[in-house]
């Protein structure tokens, strides 16, 4: 054997897994040391008993939700408002995102190019590449800026009302969808659409006839998944005058009106379930799965062709309903007259209302506090130096003393005088929450995937060869139902509402936020994890079955879907970081808290600095995920 061939085996050593595990351990250790964790609500016996009384009080009300006709009517009105605004927001977002994604997908915007390897990540290689990175920047900003900030900014343009909330939602989701669309398009192999280019198709033709059809399946399922999330999370609508479920639940939780909270949660769950069923219906109409036993059955030509029209027609119907409801339906918030909320849209085409955006101009001029590091205006620097408020990094310890731990402490203390450093440090709280929460969620989801999987619970006789008696089958079915129910509840209740609940139980802090993130991530992930397990053909299990279903799950199913699981987990981590920033707004602290504080006090310069940090976080995580080429979504 030649040495070069041996090298190939050498390079195939699974060092990447070890590296990954070490990185995760370092991150977790960092999460626990860099942020202040307050476990007193769990360790202190008095506080613990208080938290449990509150939790118990909440659980008790499940037997007696507030079903008075008045409150039911109120909740129903809120549900419809949430639904119509969310659907309107999403439909706008889908249109905007497809346009933006054309700009930010490398293979659409840049197309064929000679650049290989790292050059592909260098934005100045050609004008088209520059355009492409600008589009990516746009979508990162759209996604990073929390939706309630978009709402307040839009108030200046089109005034108060649910339409403002819907548009804010649209802007935020545009950022999310454009990122996913462009990543999915970019992950299509160049060789699979080469023919279109060889036949003389331009870049748009390549997109429409080559790239888009190949990625359509993932694009469609991700759009529907996002739509469900948006319907659940449409709390922003209430922030600027429109009602909505989220805002109301927040309010009732604070009052400990648990019976009302339970009713509202039931409505949210029902809404989620309906959205789930509706999106599954659309998915079934638009996609045919050749491996599924049901599709083998012969269908009439009409039956085959009409499905796509039924799917599209249903979608259009839903969109039309939401427009009609916001404009002419019975859309009054409780105690008010209904009116046409679409009217303010006309303000979007007058330059006068756009000029109102000047109100937020100061945000573009973030405070960098350069004086504190000795740059900028000389006199101010001197004044600050006299007060000892400038950063003098090597005053106590020289640079060559870097091996002393105390030197690092002193340097950090010195750096704290600089505002920008404090901003950077404040990001440790959302990051810590996201890291620990995602990890807990992923582990829990992996454990729950086994009872959640149809293949292992119901159809295991197809590959194990066993023929279990009826009572074993009943017991397995029960496991499946419990697991599915757990998954449904933990993802059906939005993460922000979980955070509200746990803040009410344990008090505001990292702990409440982390648990909320963990539970919600578990619910979202267990569904996709078990979907990827159930998609494995049973004959693969048959070959490796050694007598124990659990072993087969761990060593065959788990190993085969590992890559998919990691892809989904990283996506979840990315969105959890943003959620954790939003949690700061509801009282967990850190980056989001300081940002909203400065924003609500109209200290736009300082808010601008915090916003830059939020955007930077989003961009860094996004670029890492693009470089790791994780976006191979096969849902």
């Amino acid at each position, binding site marked *: 054997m030649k040495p070069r061939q041996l090298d190939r085996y050498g390079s195939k050593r699974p060092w990447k897994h070890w590296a990954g595990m070490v990185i995760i351990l370092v991150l977790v250790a960092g999460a626990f040391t860099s942020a202040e964790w307050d476990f007193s609500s769990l360790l202190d016996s008095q506080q613990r008993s208080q938290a449990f009384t509150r939790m118990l009080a909440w659980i008790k009300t499940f037997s007696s939700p507030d079903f008075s006709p008045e409150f039911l009517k109120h909740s129903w009105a809120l549900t419809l408002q949430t639904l119509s605004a969310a659907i309107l927001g999403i439909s706008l977002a889908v249109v905007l995102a497809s346009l933006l994604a054309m700009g930010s997908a490398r293979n659409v915007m840049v197309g064929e190019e000679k650049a290989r390897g790292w050059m592909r990540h260098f934005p100045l290689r050609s004008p088209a590449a520059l355009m492409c990175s600008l589009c990516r920047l746009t979508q990162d900003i759209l996604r990073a800026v929390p939706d309630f900030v978009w709402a307040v900014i839009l108030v200046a343009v089109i005034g*108060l009302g649910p339409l403002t909330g819907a548009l804010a939602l649209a802007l935020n989701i545009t950022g999310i969808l454009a990122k996913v669309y462009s990543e999915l398009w970019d992950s299509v192999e160049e060789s699979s659409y080469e023919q279109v280019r060889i036949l003389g198709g331009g870049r748009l033709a390549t997109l429409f006839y080559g790239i888009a059809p190949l990625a359509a399946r993932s694009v469609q399922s991700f759009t529907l998944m996002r739509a469900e999330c948006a319907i659940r999370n449409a709390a922003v609508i209430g922030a600027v005058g429109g009602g909505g479920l989220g805002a109301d639940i927040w309010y009732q939780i604070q009052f400990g009106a648990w019976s009302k909270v339970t009713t509202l949660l039931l409505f949210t769950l029902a809404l989620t379930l309906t959205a789930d069923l509706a999106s599954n219906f659309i998915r079934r109409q638009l996609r045919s799965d050749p491996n599924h036993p049901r599709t083998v059955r012969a269908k009439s030509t009409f039956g085959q062709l009409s499905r796509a029209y039924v799917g599209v027609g249903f979608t259009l119907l839903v969109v039309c309903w939401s427009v009609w409801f916001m404009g002419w339906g019975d859309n009054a918030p409780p*105690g008010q007259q209904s009116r046409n909320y679409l009217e303010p849209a006309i303000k979007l085409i007058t330059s006068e209302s756009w000029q*109102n955006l000047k109100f937020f101009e100061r945000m573009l001029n973030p405070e960098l506090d350069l004086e504190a590091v000795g740059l900028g205006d000389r006199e101010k620097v001197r004044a600050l130096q006299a007060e000892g408020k400038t950063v003098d990094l090597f005053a106590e310890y020289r640079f060559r003393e870097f091996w002393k731990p105390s030197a690092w402490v002193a340097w950090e203390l010195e750096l704290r005088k600089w505002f920008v450093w404090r901003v950077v440090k404040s990001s440790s709280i959302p990051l810590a929450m996201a890291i620990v929460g995602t990890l807990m969620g992923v582990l829990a989801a992996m454990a729950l995937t086994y009872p959640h999987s149809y293949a292992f619970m119901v159809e295991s006789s197809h590959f194990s060869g066993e023929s279990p008696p009826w009572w074993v089958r009943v017991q397995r079915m029960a496991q499946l139902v419990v697991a599915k129910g757990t998954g449904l509840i933990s993802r059906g209740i939005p993460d922000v509402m979980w955070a509200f609940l746990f803040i009410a139980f344990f008090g505001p802090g990292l702990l409440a936020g982390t648990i909320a993130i963990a539970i919600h991530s578990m619910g979202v992930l267990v569904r996709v994890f078990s979907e990827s397990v159930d998609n494995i053909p049973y004959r693969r299990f048959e070959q490796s079955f050694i007598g124990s279903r659990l072993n087969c799950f761990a060593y065959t199913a788990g190993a085969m879907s590992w890559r998919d699981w990691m892809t989904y987990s990283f996506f979840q981590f990315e969105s959890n970081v943003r959620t954790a920033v939003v949690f700061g707004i509801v009282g967990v602290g850190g980056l989001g808290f300081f940002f909203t504080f400065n924003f609500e006090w109209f200290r736009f310069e300082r808010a601008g600095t915090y916003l830059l940090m939020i955007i930077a976080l989003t961009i860094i995580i996004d670029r890492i995920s693009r470089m790791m080429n994780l976006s191979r979504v096969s849902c």
Partner: protein
Amino acid sequence: MIDIQETLRTNWPFHYYHQTLQEENVKRIILSAMIMIWTLGLVVTGSTLPAFTAERPSKLVMTAIPDDSAENMREFFGLIAQHIENKVGIPTEYVHVANYAASVTALATGQADLAWFGAVTTAQAYIVMGDELEVIAARDIDKEFIGYFIANADAGIPPVNDLKELTELAQDKNWTFTFGSKSSTSSHMMPRSFFTDQSGQNPEEVFRTVAYSGSHDVVLQKVANGEFHIGALGQPPYDRASDELKLKAPIIYTTPKFTNYNFSTRKGLGSELIGQIHAALLSLHESPEGQKALGYLKSKQFVDADMSEWMGYVDLIKSGVDIGG
């Protein structure tokens, strides 16, 4: 890897390649021209469309800072809107927002015409709007407003004479503390300012956690059920609460008097209309719906007010409030 451009150039008939290139160019030019015309058209129509704020607006939008439950505020501010509509003769609508900053933004950018502000929001609006802001009326109690510090009854915290005493009591006790909303005057800004003035310390240095619950009634609720040991809130929300809640969360300190809420508007409405709204507000106690609203607001009637009474807050905010970060 096959280079497609290269393949085209060597294998395809030259003239054909040339032709497609030309067609492509023409298409491109037409397309970019169309886009340019389109944007130009948009800009032109945008700038020439008639301004929407006519001499006398066809409707008035009223908003308020959300310091109570949405249902309460919709009901009682809806009544005030009704009263103004009857007196001024222009349809008036109350739009509820769940965010303090949104209400200030709405008035400052002309999306709302009338706003019920606290002192802090008034000062914030003044900082962003300047002389465009006009304060037109306030409640009789707003000129001598007070705030309360309340404590959970089971925590065994005695009433104190000043806040210095409270900080001494709080040493090594691990007490938790809650304000109302960040932008609130009587449940955050003034209690905080009195606290630092009297004790020389920030609340963050004295208590284990300092939280912002969102609104006055929530502060009372959370202190009463023991989620927080101590809280700060304004007078009317405490007074209108049930006796049961008050027993669970007794007052431990009453702040000195300060100026608070008012109705603000923008000068862009024209002095005639502002005068009419002013008159309508001052006569609020004369109509039945006005009486109802005043009962909710814990006030007898509205009185004259002027921006100068709130200028102290502008200075206070400009001098910077230390919130950390």
